């Protein structure tokens, strides 16, 4: 779902200096976070590198970075720049003829009422998805934190399975589960309720958000778990001595000290919301009444079904700008730097 995103400065530099890797995909983000949160390996690596002379250090650095740099150049920089060029052209993807139309595609995108409908759909998805996933993943992390460490790995792996499952496969399974005569509706029939999960325009996007929440709960739960492990246990001990109850300890210690994790998850979830593709593509194809049409779906449809590569590229650029605007706004609203130093 989450394809290559924009190069967004998502974290304060003093906080995580090498997080330029978050440009790419969730797995790389994951590696960085685990490295900082759990392993404490950065100091060891720092010591090793510091023993080398500066030039050699530089060379080793480039050597180790070269696969990533090559990957970035070929798979991100080139398509990104080419996408910008195409967005100013009229090109049907399969013909050698490409005509410069400059801002015509951008004007078309901004004048199309579908753009604002898709933004509205993404916001609807984002609200449901972020609310649901934050709750489920935090609850999951809190539960896993309570169980002995030797069993925790089993549960973490179990919940991560949904994240690594094929989007196409589980979309088909959910489509059957939520069908008119599917398991969910058959159970609801007992209490006389029938829901058009994917056919009612009002709730189709919420149904998609539930599926994506199922996918990401284990993954985001891992971030929360890393965040929880980073909280100094003496803070809880002091709070207990001061007479704080469990709820007060949760709201006054756990939640504020998880701020960095909340910021990170909200940033990732926002990008996921605007990059949503597989589930609506597989289940609803953007319907009913365009209720699940997302910008990614429309970009794909424009480029590969209607052969409007220029228009699709312009929409991709506009989509990246809108996503960036949302991420930036959220960071401004919820990120609290002073908590980092606590």
């Amino acid at each position, binding site marked *: 779902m989450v394809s290559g995103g924009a190069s967004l400065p998502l974290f304060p530099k003093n906080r995580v200096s090498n997080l330029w890797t978050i440009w790419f995909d969730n797995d790389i983000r994951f590696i960085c976070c685990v490295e900082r949160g759990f392993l404490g390996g950065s100091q060891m690596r720092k010591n090793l590198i510091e023993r080398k002379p500066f030039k050699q250090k530089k060379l080793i650095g480039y050597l180790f970075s070269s696969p990533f740099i090559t990957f970035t150049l070929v798979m991100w920089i080139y398509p990104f720049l080419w996408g910008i060029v195409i967005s100013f052209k009229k090109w*049907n*993807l*399969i*013909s050698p003829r490409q005509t410069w139309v400059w801002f015509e595609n951008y004007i078309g995108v901004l004048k199309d009422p579908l753009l604002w409908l898709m933004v509205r759909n993404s916001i609807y998805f984002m609200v449901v998805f972020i609310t649901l996933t934050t709750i489920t993943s935090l609850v999951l992390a809190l539960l896993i934190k309570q169980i002995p460490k030797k069993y925790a790995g089993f549960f973490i792996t179990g919940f991560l399975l949904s994240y690594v499952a094929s989007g196409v496969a589980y979309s088909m399974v959910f*489509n*059957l589960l939520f*069908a*008119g*005569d599917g398991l969910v*509706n058959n159970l609801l029939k007992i209490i006389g309720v*029938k829901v*058009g999960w*994917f*056919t*009612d*325009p009002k709730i189709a996007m919420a149904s998609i958000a539930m599926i994506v929440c199922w996918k990401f709960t284990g993954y985001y739960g891992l971030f929360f778990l890393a965040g929880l492990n980073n909280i100094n246990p003496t803070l809880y001990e002091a709070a207990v001595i001061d007479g704080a109850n469990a709820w007060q300890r949760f709201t006054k210690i756990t939640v504020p000290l998880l701020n960095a994790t909340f910021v990170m998850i909200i940033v990732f979830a926002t990008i996921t919301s605007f990059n949503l593709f597989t589930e609506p*593509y597989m289940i*609803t*194809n*953007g*319907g*009913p*009444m*365009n209720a699940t049409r997302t910008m990614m779906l429309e970009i794909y*449809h424009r480029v*590969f*079904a*209607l*052969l409007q590569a220029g228009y699709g590229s312009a929409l991709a650029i506009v989509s990246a700008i809108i996503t960036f605007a949302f991420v930036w706004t959220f960071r401004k609203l919820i990120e609290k730097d002073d908590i980092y130093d606590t």
Partner: protein
Amino acid sequence: MKKTLVVLLVSALVMTLAGVGQMATTTIEFWTAPNPFQEAFWSETVKEWNSTHPDQQIKWQVIPAGNSSEEVVLTALATGTGPDLSTNIFTGFAAQLIENDFLVPFNQFDGFEELLKARSMENIVKNGWGFNGNYYVLPLYTNPMAYWWNKDILDELGYDVPRTYGDVLKLAANYNDPGKQKYTLLVRYEPAWWDRWYDFCLSYLANSGGKPYWDSEKVLFNDEHALKYMEFIDQLFRKKYAPIESFQDPLQKGIVLGSIEGPWNINYTKEAYPDFKYVIAPPLVPDDYPADQPVHTFADTKGMVMLTKNKQKQAVAWNFIKWYFSDIRHDAKWLEMTNMLPSREDVLERKEFAEYLSANPQLAEYAKLLPYSVPPALNSKTIELQTKLNEVLWEPVIYGKKTPVKAINDAEKELNKIIKQ
């Protein structure tokens, strides 16, 4: 020394000859529809060709998985990994490919006219598959679409198979009960562009006596034929005679009484629901449609196209096409293995098909519709038009957001804009 020289020379000669032999073998890429029955058929057919034509080999594969074959083929062509020869091409998509100079006209090859006669498809090709005086597609099969009605429930209720919209509404008034998952007619609400072939386009053809719903110049459907159908659809959804939820095989499970189906579902139904009894009937028509007039229907018909610009490969592809289309045994085997009707004018007359059709009465019902089956209306922007048709006409009426009159007027306006772009 001499011996060594002779051995070396002989080895060099053998290697050279082997190289020449290798060079003389031309291989073409051939893609076919991603359908298990067609896959089995082409696997055997290509194997037969390859074994008898060692110097003209075919590398066959099904069209890779994707949302639609059209998207996959276009993506492959855009990245230079497309096939040399492909099936599963409908007229509108062919027009799109022709506009971009991807297809090779078959009438430039020797023996084209003879081939049309040999396969008994001269009228079919010349009356529906021509583009600017050239013929780029050879139709492979024609699947007329028809209604299926649940025979057991109709018999139980004492109703005849509905012929008109009024018949359906009368039947629904006495049968429909959404609370018990008893609906009358399945109307597909999916927004995929091709779904509109099987409801709006089909019904327009039925009501209008086979008149095209648009051409390459403008929209033609803003008339009483479209209005009567959309008013019927409006009533079906307002009165909940058609389900809005998705079901798997709702007709076979008895959730709906009737549904539009293609012949490809006959074998599946026979295997998955062996006890299900159904009647195959022509499309529904308005109440004032004369009972003695034949009813036209939409034909899901796909053909074969040549995409390679390499002359050597073109020669191999054309030889394969001649070999395939000129031998009626291939069409007979196609019919048996895929249960799809070959695009021939003599399907009902030739003894090669008679035995299979008499053993498969359901398919024979479809075969009777062949003379009244109309392929998709020609327009290179079919995908864009049907996407818009869904957005401004179909879904707004189904979800009660527009009246049929307004929806049709809006659709005419919006679709004409696309055609004129």
